[in-house]
């Protein structure tokens, strides 16, 4: 990814960079086709779909499918729920990860390798295995069917990964900085807040963005733990259209389009953070 080899490649192999460009364009088109099909069908009337099939371009802009779906599931409320849950999880999970990683990566707690192994194993647990234990725990605690319950679950799940990642990042944290801070009289708490967090901010920002998107897209646990319609998230609401035997292709497309838009918007807003975080990692 560093600029030098790329420049050399361009000089030496002019035609091959065109080949790369061409294949990237082809790849981009292939990636975009499903979105185009979804967008097409979202604005078609059911009759148009029935006569023309899924691939024909729409003859006009028919927004009833989108509007009907919005009203049917009260999509605005679902958006708000998703934002509240994903944002809380993203922030809380990063805070927990930082605290854990500070102890494991910089604090050098005894047995930290084994603690990390435990976190890694926790990461690989399938969510299906968590459902019943959590269900019994949450019904006892009164957290079943509350957003707080889901936030706690995902904070733990995401923080498990965050701890694992941040611990190895902070394990290579420059010792000189920590010692300098300590000589200046900073206590452990001040070292964390004034030195460690500011220096690793790009990494933390990327974690926040990833946790947000991952939590946003979660389907299974919210499906099980958010059973009242008024607490549900966007992906769960999209499931309402899935009938036993029948589907409504145009309305399903409309709902899929509505489901994608927030993720795209979020990506566009935080795109700079993401790319910056990736390059920071690459240079290191």
């Amino acid at each position, binding site marked *: 990814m560093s600029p030098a080899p790329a420049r050399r490649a361009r000089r030496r192999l002019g035609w091959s960079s065109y080949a790369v460009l061409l294949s990237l364009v082809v790849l981009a088109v292939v990636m975009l086709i499903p979105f185009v099909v979804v967008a097409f069908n979202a604005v078609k009337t059911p009759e148009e779909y029935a006569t023309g099939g899924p691939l024909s371009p729409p003859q006009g802009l028919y927004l009833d499918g989108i509007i009907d779906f919005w009203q049917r599931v009260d999509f605005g409320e679902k958006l708000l729920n998703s934002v509240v849950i994903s944002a*809380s999880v993203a922030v*809380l999970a990063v805070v927990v990860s930082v605290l854990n990683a500070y102890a494991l990566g910089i604090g050098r707690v005894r047995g930290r390798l084994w603690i990390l192994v435990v976190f890694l194993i926790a990461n690989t647990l399938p969510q299906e295995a968590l459902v019943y234990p959590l269900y019994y725990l949450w019904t006892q605690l009164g957290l079943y069917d*509350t957003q707080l319950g889901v936030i706690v679950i995902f904070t733990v799940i995401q923080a498990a990964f965050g701890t694992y990642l941040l611990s190895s990042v902070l394990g290579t944290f420059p010792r000189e900085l920590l010692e300098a801070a300590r000589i200046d009289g900073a206590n452990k708490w001040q070292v964390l807040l004034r030195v460690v967090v500011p220096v690793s901010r790009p990494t933390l920002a990327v974690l926040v963005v990833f946790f947000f998107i991952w939590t946003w897209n979660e389907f299974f646990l919210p499906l099980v733990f958010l059973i009242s319609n008024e607490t549900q998230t966007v992906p*769960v609401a999209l499931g309402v259209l899935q009938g036993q035997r*029948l589907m409504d292709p145009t309305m399903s497309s409309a709902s899929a389009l509505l489901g994608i838009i927030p993720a795209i918007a979020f990506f566009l807003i935080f795109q700079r953070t993401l790319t910056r975080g990736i390059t920071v990692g690459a240079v290191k």
Partner: protein
Amino acid sequence: MFKRGQRAVFAALAAAAMALTGCGGGSGADSDPNTLRLWHFEAPNSAMGVAWNEAIKQFEASHPGVKVQVEEKGFEQIQKTAAMVLNSREAPDILEYNKGNATTGLLAKQGVLTDMSEEVAKRGWDKLLTPGLQTTARYDERGVMGSGKWYGVPNYAEYEMVYYNKDMFAEHGIAVPTTLDEFTSAMDKFVSAGITPLAVGGAEYPAHQILYQLALSKADRAWVDRYQRYTGQVDFHDPAWTYAATTFADWVAKGYLSQTSASVKAEDMGASFIAGKYPIMVSGSWWYGRFSDEIKNFQWDTFLWPGNALSAGSSGNHWVIPQNSTKKQLAYDFIAITLEKGIQSKLAETGGVPVVADLGPISNPKAAQLIDNFTALSQGDGLAFYPDWPAPGFYDVLVSGTQKLINGSAGPNEVLDEFAGPYQENLANVGR
């Protein structure tokens, strides 16, 4: 120092999380004594959706002060979470739930559903519903359907039929077949005219339902009981199954259905019929409403599978009342309203199949035909349920076996052997 600080941070975090979600609590079942919480998974414009909305209006009118709080759910969500939800305080007072041993039967066995037998007898629902419809409403102590206590009350029915494109039939001078021979000679005519007659979705349920229809043409009620309710030995090489598999393979060879249909989904099968690409489609009444809405370019109608006294079909999904429901009486009252003739007629007019007979005149002639066919089937005790019911996971076995028949990678005998294995294994699991 470190520890105290950390604790303070955690306390602050917890407080923040509480504040963020303070308003996010679920609506507990004990929230309001005058609310009936109802869940179902029907689209608002479907026959059931329309009829039940009307039922809710009537219920609220006849129960002043009581409000029905409807939550529309996804089929999958109810399917995946029912056991957990119904066991908790968040359980609704009444919900639509999937019939069958693996669903209602299982929950009945676990004791989370209300035994409705007493109320059913008191309100006369056992006389209103034909025996075929009752089968899926009653479960014994092992959770096997067909006998025992009432745990569900069906509100609509479904059955297998033949949809046909009237225009294409007229164009080739073909009359509506009344026997299986006439049916096959009709398909021969289409084949000789260069048209593949049957729209089939081999990747999902439609293909093996055709296979089952063929088997049923050589079967009787005792055969169905043995197969569906484990009342006796099932032999997959008996005349009925052998006839079904060989005839099906023969139909493929004759070109009644295309070999590529092995990978076609049910949705695509329906869409191709709507687009007028095939003259005949064999499937269930659940397509009826959609065809009424979407087929504009040609005339179509339906007939029962020719020559069969038995046909795939059953009650639809039914109302169940969770054991934790606090408003059971209101729930019974609501069920009673959905079974009244007015609501059932409404369901019929919009393309649903009502469970109550003798509704009187139906203004939509095609819907009247749909109901007459069902009445004929149901009164003659002709509902034979669906082939994938007897064992969990049997659906996939049937789909893959029938696919092999379509693409010719296995002969009828091998395919029947493939069916027999998992079926007999399951018998051991249910204790037979």
